[in-house]
């Protein structure tokens, strides 16, 4: 998983039918330079290359900090009603699994409420 800031939304009209109704966000992962500038030599510039497209069933919005999971965990996250033992089937590999209230990083003296 990683923590990132929601920076945008992805719209698409042509998609696999099991993706109907699923919202997709662009999430920019936090780099160590963003969280603890004292631990890295130089800042990390933002490029769109950094953006990760993640499915969202929690209702996160642009500007919020979220936690994104990859792989099987992402597919489990977008099917909350999936019975135990049954495999998820939506073709995604990244999903928002939590919306961050608060994080605390030591050494950087940065406490984000």
């Amino acid at each position: 998983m990683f923590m990132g800031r929601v920076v945008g939304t992805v719209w698409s009209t042509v998609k696999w039918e099991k993706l109907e109704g699923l919202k997709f966000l662009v999430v920019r992962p936090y780099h160590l330079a963003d969280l603890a500038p004292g631990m890295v030599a130089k800042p990390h510039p933002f490029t769109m290359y950094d953006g990760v497209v993640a499915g969202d069933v929690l209702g996160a919005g642009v500007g919020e900090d979220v936690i994104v999971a990859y792989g099987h965990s992402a597919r489990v996250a977008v099917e909350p009603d999936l019975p135990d033992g049954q495999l998820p089937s939506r073709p995604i590999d990244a999903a928002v699994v939590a919306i961050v209230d608060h994080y605390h990083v030591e050494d950087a003296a940065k406490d984000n409420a």
Partner: protein
Amino acid sequence: MMLARVIGEVWATRKSPRMEGRKLLLVAALRKGQDAAMEPTGQVVVAIDTIGARIGHTVAVAWGSGARAVLAPPDNRSVLADAAVARIVDAVTLGNDDQPEYLE
């Protein structure tokens, strides 16, 4: 698995029900730097912790189904976890036993 240093914690109330009760740590990935020291790569990962790792600890983080194996018995396909702290690391050496290189 990945070597990393614990740098912080995250709290979230709006989350997937399968994330309930999980303690989430922010960990910075490490690589070998110069002068036998480990340095951060810049990548920051959110890992689930069940063994009590604290800020400043060096840890080994398991990914994917390895992370689910840290958290639950073999039938764990409904567990939501793609990174989990598997162990707290005391020491790392590189090279063979004759000429070990100790990393700090």
